[in-house]
């Protein structure tokens, strides 16, 4: 849930979620989820075994699997906040946009996807009060006559803020009037979403998945998930945070759906705004986790969205002091508020993976075993609009101009020293947002079943926007010249495992890793490939970042595990980057120099581009003013593979 940065807002959010929690008690108790709880755990592999093998293949079928790029986090006018932000684009518009057509931006201009059409998209509107704002703005509808909806739909950003606060406050004090729970409004919106997906799904060419966002935020701590369905067979209505703010209730519900033949998975996001709650090492209610809990979580949450516009949740500089690239698009506030996050552990995926290893070691189960994707969280119905060169914010009328985003001096001032130039506290929040988030998957073909199966088996990767391709395999048996083999990919699959998998220990053998990255032709060149390793040593989780391949023929320093600087630069007055620096692709067969066969570990790849201008610098150049002094002028775009877990021989 995107919440406006009104000063009063965040107090209201805290109250909001206590409402969610209390309704949970009413709603969740007697219904189906409780039943599921009594009969837990279909085993995890059962779900992934469902990968469809249809006899006829779609165009583009490739046994070695293709990289497909998509966005699994997209809001349209059916989301209550997007509607208030003046967004009027529909799910249909979102899919049209993903296919390359132009749509309107609430700021009064047209937007179009750079970099060509996407391969797959899910529209994921907030399930809570879905479709109700559009209904409330329809004259003579029941909702339009309620006092709370009067004067709610303004085009003035200040009034939008007030409207937003009003709705959020209403959540807090006893909830929105019961008219908002009208099932027919929800059904109509849910049908519109399914119809748009059905219309645009085109096996072999474009995949439209049906989904929604479950928007739980107890005390403002972000516990949001996107629920994605495998096929057109979906739940009758979304299960929302109005029913329960406890994600365990969502998972139980998904288990029930699964038993009824409705297959879905949930993707948590913005753990950075959860104040340590998303990956806390206890259950929602603070009681200890157990194996049944870990199984349920992994069965329902095979992947995590670790980068999006509201920041990147790989790791925080304070959690990874030895990672020079940790400080990347870090957002240190609650979602939709200026309230500062106080607890970073539990809010970032790397730490969670480490905690998972420790739990596996000490308790025999691992609740945090997931792959990575990125997505945009656009509220403009504009999937994949995450190019720093062409950034349009994501909350419609509220951050549609550079001044609103804090990338240029306020009030038309030409200098940041001008007393009028100061960026207001609410708008300062938008400064820390990044133009980030795409999901990459390795799948045989571009169909719902194939892409969903890839998500299930975690053969996925995340990028900060560019369409870089990353492959990552591990095996004990790769030949030392496998990279020269023209059948390297089929060999890699035949003799090893791809990203997202477990590699089991074999006595006397050291695993070899294929690390392979290819640049996005429309973005920068690559400067280095890295492997991020986490492991457990004497019961304590550790981490280390290894450079494994250097660009421009530079030699890796084996003692520091670092590549020399390749000298690539950016002219921040023009955003021009240095020519002839960096590689189009990087490929290496890597062995862990510190490998210990008895230590449980995970490995994931991070590929770094040469530095390039951040969106805020592009905004400033177009405005003819200097970049904001408190913001980084350049960023290092990147891609992350899903991890491979090394499991020692018992």
């Amino acid at each position, binding site marked *: 849930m995107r919440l406006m940065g009104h000063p009063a807002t965040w107090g209201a959010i805290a109250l909001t979620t206590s409402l969610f929690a209390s309704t949970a008690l009413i709603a969740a108790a007697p219904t189906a989820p409780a039943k599921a709880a009594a009969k837990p755990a279909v085993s995890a592999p059962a779900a992934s075994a469902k990968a469809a093998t249809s006899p006829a293949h779609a165009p583009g079928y490739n046994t070695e699997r293709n990289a497909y790029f998509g966005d699994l986090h997209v809001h349209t006018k059916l989301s209550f906040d997007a509607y208030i932000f003046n967004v009027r684009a529909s799910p249909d518009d979102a899919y049209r946009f993903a296919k390359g057509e132009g749509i309107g931006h609430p700021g009064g201009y047209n937007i179009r996807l750079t970099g060509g059409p996407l391969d797959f998209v899910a529209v994921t509107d907030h399930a809570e009060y879905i479709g109700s704002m559009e209904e409330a703005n329809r004259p003579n509808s029941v909702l339009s006559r309620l006092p709370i909806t*009067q004067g709610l*739909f303004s085009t003035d950003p200040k009034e939008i803020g007030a409207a937003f606060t009003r709705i959020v406050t209403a959540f807090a004090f006893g909830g929105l009037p019961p008219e908002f729970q009208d099932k027919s409004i929800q059904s109509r919106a849910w049908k519109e979403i399914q119809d748009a997906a059905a219309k645009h799904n085109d096996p072999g060419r474009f995949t439209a998945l049906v989904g929604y966002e479950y928007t739980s935020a107890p005390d403002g701590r972000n516990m949001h998930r996107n629920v994605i369905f495998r096929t057109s067979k979906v739940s009758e209505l979304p299960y929302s945070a109005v029913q329960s703010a406890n994600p365990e209730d969502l998972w139980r519900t998904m288990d029930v759906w699964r038993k009824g033949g409705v297959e879905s998975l949930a993707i948590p996001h913005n753990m950075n705004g959860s104040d340590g709650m998303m990956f806390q090492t206890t259950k929602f209610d603070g009681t200890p986790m157990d194996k049944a809990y870990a199984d349920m979580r992994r069965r329902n949450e095979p992947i995590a969205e670790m980068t999006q516009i509201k920041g990147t949740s790989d790791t925080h500089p304070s959690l990874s002091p030895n990672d020079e690239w940790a400080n990347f698009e870090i957002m240190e506030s609650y979602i939709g508020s200026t309230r500062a996050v106080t607890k970073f552990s539990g809010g970032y995926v790397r730490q969670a993976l480490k905690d998972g290893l420790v739990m596996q070691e000490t308790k025999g189960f691992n609740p945090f075993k997931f792959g990575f994707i990125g997505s945009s969280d656009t509220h403009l119905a504009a999937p994949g609009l995450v190019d720093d060169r062409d950034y349009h914010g994501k909350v419609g009328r509220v951050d549609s101009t550079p001044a609103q985003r804090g990338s240029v001096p306020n009030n038309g001032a030409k200098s940041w020293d001008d007393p009028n130039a100061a960026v207001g506290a609410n708008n300062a929040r938008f400064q820390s947002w990044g133009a980030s988030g795409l999901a990459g998957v390795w799948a045989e073909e571009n169909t719902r079943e194939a892409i969903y199966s890839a998500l299930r088996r975690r053969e996925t990767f995340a990028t900060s926007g560019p369409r870089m*391709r990353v492959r990552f395999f591990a095996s004990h048996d790769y030949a030392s010249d496998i990279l*020269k083999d023209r059948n390297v990919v089929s060999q890699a699959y035949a003799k090893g495992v791809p990203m997202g998998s477990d590699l089991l220990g074999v006595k006397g053998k050291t695993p070899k890793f294929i690390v*392979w990255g290819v*640049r996005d032709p429309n973005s920068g060149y690559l400067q280095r490939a890295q492997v991020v390793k986490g492991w457990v040593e004497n019961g304590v989780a550790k981490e280390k970042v290894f450079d494994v391949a250097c660009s421009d023929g530079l030699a890796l320093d084996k003692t520091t595990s670092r590549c020399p600087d390749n000298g690539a630069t950016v002219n921040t007055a023009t955003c021009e980057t240095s020519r002839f620096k960096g590689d*189009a692709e990087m490929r290496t067969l890597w062995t862990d120099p510190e490998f210990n066969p008895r230590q449980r570990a995970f490995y994931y790849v991070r590929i770094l581009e040469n530095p390039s201008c951040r969106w805020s610098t592009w905004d400033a150049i177009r405005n003819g003013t200097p970049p904001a002094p408190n913001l980084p002028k350049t960023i290092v775009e990147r891609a992350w593979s899903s991890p491979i877990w090394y499991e020692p021989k018992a």
Partner: protein
Amino acid sequence: MTFTDRFERLPGPLKSGLREPLTHFLLIGALLFGGGLIFKAQQRPVIVVNTQDVAQMAEYWELQSQRPPTREELTAMVRERVDEEILAREAQRLGLDQDDLIIRRRLAQKMAFAGQDVAPIPEPSPRTLESYYDRTRQTYAEPAHLTLRHAFFSVERTEGDPRLAAEAALATTRSGQTPVSDPFMLALTYADVSAIELLRDYGPEFAQLAEKAPLGTWVGPVASPFGWHVVRIESRRPARIPPFNDVKSEVRDAYMAEQRQAANAGFMAKLRKRYRIEVAEAPA
């Protein structure tokens, strides 16, 4: 006893007083005044709260509070409703609704809504649709689709220049050999790929070559952002515009959407005609 008899029996001074024209005047005046009062009372605007309204208020209360309202609560609700109505009417009487941004916006919204999508769009005849398709056929254009294979020579290869390697590989194809590719992360064979996908993934040179190259023979080398390629197009379905029958339902949707849009725009245009619009020059 007649009226005259009674009058004659009245005491003298009263009798003379009643004969006074001033008395007549006052009497008639009083009658008129009293009648006016009664008339006026009947002419006062009425606020009616009927049983249906009361029932609705009670129902709404019950939805909110999970219990029916007490008699006192209901009375208070009715009083509030009446007060609100009175205040609203008085505000209107005083013209307080003029120049109010929110009221104006709401009215405009209601009017716009009233004018939108009102007239049903008649189902178009097949002939109408076909002529619409003829005018808009370009929107249904499909890119060329190809079956191809290629060999790739990476700009990052360590042995030799990739372009020369590609040329050498191309030369070997003259003697019927299959060129040996560097490992490549994208596919080396495509059973069915669109020209748009090739453009996106390999850039314009590659895409153009793929659209023009002769079938069944190795051609190149051609550059991409990744390196050099030699390409063999196995088959090609040229870019085309699908026939009407293949896209009938899309054509209908587009036609209906356009008609609806036109009707809505026409409504606004008709209203605009009723006004002369004067806009001051925008301040510099």
